[in-house]
């Protein structure tokens, strides 16, 4: 397997900039996830790696080779499509061996490799069937087998799980991770599902409107989102954000919004002093807020969503903003409409510059 690198890739469709100066590398044997909302340019970036789309600017490298001008078939990457893209008129066996036929692999070796791929994906009994006679999950495995059989430099996957039902998706997710490990594959994996990204990715690259927002390990992205977009995009329910200003001195910095005052911990305060923004956005994840009789924030419960193991409390602050509090299922639930006080874990506050939307922190 090989690394896959995009260097200053820009792709324009007429007046739409689908990918904007993207520099990104999937290391050898890494599962890199491209994550972002619909239309952010994930698929376009993947298709540029595959050679199905030519970049307007920039360089694509696979291994040590500059493949920017190479044709798709010469790039030695395999792709798994959301639609699976199986050839409906061919049996599963023919589908899987189709790429080998194109490369004139001798029949004996072909059969051997098809059998091997079929075993790896547990589709040996399906080899004689046509795609129409398969379930969604089985089709998905065939598509994976067709990718694996080629032994490519890298795998590209565009939302391969999105056509599966929720249960099968969770199961297949684990199988994909296992497969990636067994084949020590370099995988670029596109999804708009942050749970998939968090659970599967070695690193996550978050895109918004064609621009790379942050690349890091899932936990790092979650704990230290680089900007407001990432902060709000990663995590369910999403991070609460409150816009306000900073008052007080270096030793006692306070975040103030209408009806809300939060004292900032020393570490955050010193970082803030050097940046000294006018307006800031305070971010706090729902699990970092808790009902606390001694808390400084007064609020009113307006909705309780129970998921069994936890509850999402939608509360309204005095100034009318709503925030979400995550409460473990074993704590006593508040009543609807009840007035409560909240406190936030001071070590897990996130502060962003309201103008640049960038993270402010040490």
């Amino acid at each position: 397997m090989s690394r896959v690198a995009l260097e200053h890739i820009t792709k324009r469709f007429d007046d739409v900039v689908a990918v904007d100066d993207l520099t990104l590398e999937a290391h050898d044997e890494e599962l890199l996830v491209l994550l972002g909302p619909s239309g952010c340019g994930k698929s376009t970036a993947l298709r540029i790696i595959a050679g199905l789309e030519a970049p307007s600017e920039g360089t694509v490298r696979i291994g040590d080779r500059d493949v920017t001008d190479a044709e798709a078939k010469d790039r030695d990457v395999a792709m798994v499509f959301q639609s699976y893209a199986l050839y409906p008129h061919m049996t599963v066996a023919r589908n899987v061996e189709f790429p080998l036929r194109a490369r004139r692999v001798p029949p004996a070796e072909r059969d051997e490799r098809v059998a091997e791929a079929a075993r790896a994906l547990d589709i040996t009994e399906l080899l004689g069937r046509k795609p129409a006679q398969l379930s969604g999950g089985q089709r998905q495995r065939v598509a994976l087998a067709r990718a694996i059989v080629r032994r490519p430099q890298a795998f590209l996957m565009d939302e391969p799980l999105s056509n599966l039902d929720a249960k099968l998706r969770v199961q297949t997710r684990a199988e994909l991770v296992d497969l990636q490990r067994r084949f020590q594959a370099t995988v670029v994996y596109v999804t708009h599902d942050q749970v998939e990204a968090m659970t599967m990715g070695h690193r996550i690259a978050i895109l918004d409107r064609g621009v790379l927002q942050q690349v890091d390990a899932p936990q790092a992205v979650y704990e230290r989102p680089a900007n407001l977009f990432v902060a709000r995009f990663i995590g369910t329910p999403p991070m609460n954000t409150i816009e306000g200003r900073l008052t007080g001195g270096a030793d006692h910095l306070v975040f103030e919004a209408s009806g809300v005052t939060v004292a900032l911990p020393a570490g955050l305060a010193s970082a803030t002093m050097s940046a000294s923004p006018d307006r800031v956005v305070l971010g706090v994840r729902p699990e970092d807020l808790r009902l606390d009789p001694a808390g400084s924030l007064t609020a009113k419960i307006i909705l309780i969503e129970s998921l069994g193991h936890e509850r999402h409390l939608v509360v309204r602050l005095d100034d009318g903003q709503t925030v979400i509090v995550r409460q473990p299922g074993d704590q006593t639930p508040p009543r609807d409409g009840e007035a409560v006080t909240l406190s936030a874990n001071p070590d897990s506050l996130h502060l962003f510059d309201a103008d640049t939307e960038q993270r402010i922190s040490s």
Partner: protein
Amino acid sequence: MTADAAILPGPVTASTEVATRRRGGPSRRVRLLGRYLLLSVLAVIVLFPIYITVVNSLLRPAQIASQPPTFFPTHPIFSTYSDAWSSGHLGHYLFNSFVVTIIIVGGQVLTSILAGYAFAFLKFPFKRALFVLFLATLMIPFEVTVVQNLTTVVSLGIYNTYAGLAAPFLAWGLGVFLLRQAFLGIPRDLDDAAALDGYGNWRFLWRVAVPLARPSIAALTVFSFLTAWNQYLWPLLVTKDEHLSTVQIGLRQLRGTSLENVNITFAGVIIAVVPLVVLLVVFQKQLIRGLTAGAVKG
């Protein structure tokens, strides 16, 4: 024409039938009865001329002209068929028709596949305009271009040859349209997958696109065969030797000999139609699928 009348009501009845079945009740039977009645009338309208032709081919010439007309031959004469075959040289004419028709069908299917693929999958300048131009040719009756075609064929030196008989029909706008539509129905992901699997346009066309467009190709084959087989004006103009005449020209010569043999002409007509009937029966299933391919998904 017979094909249209017989086939087109197919999908319509199928869908309405489902609807009525769901509604149920006695009105359903009335509706069904009405529908079959209508279809039967249409069938009679279509079949009657063919029936009369068969009857007339079995009568003596005097009976054919008599009033009231005979609708059922009490003493059928079957020798008209062997007479038509031998005295009309129908065997030879049928052979000519086969050769010319096969060249035309082969040419049309091939050019339609290639052009249809280009319009569906390739990017090139003036694609839209060219496609509209292709469609526009469908609005020009053949008679308008016949003189120009004739001079072209003469100047190419293929007047009075099989090539001359076939040349103007080797490409057909409707065929290109039909296959473009069929190719557009193929998911683009398949194209992309094939590109990554190592297949260029040419191999993708023959290994994936053509097999998937088979119903439409079958439909085109049949339509193309029908029109080529039934040609009259062009073969008349472009041949001067009788040994190149197609069966439709041969039939005219059969009639030309004398009016007393009109029953033999009718027999000849029936013989000339047999290949078409065989073709329709063989391709029936594919043809219906091809006609409904765009309308019904799956």
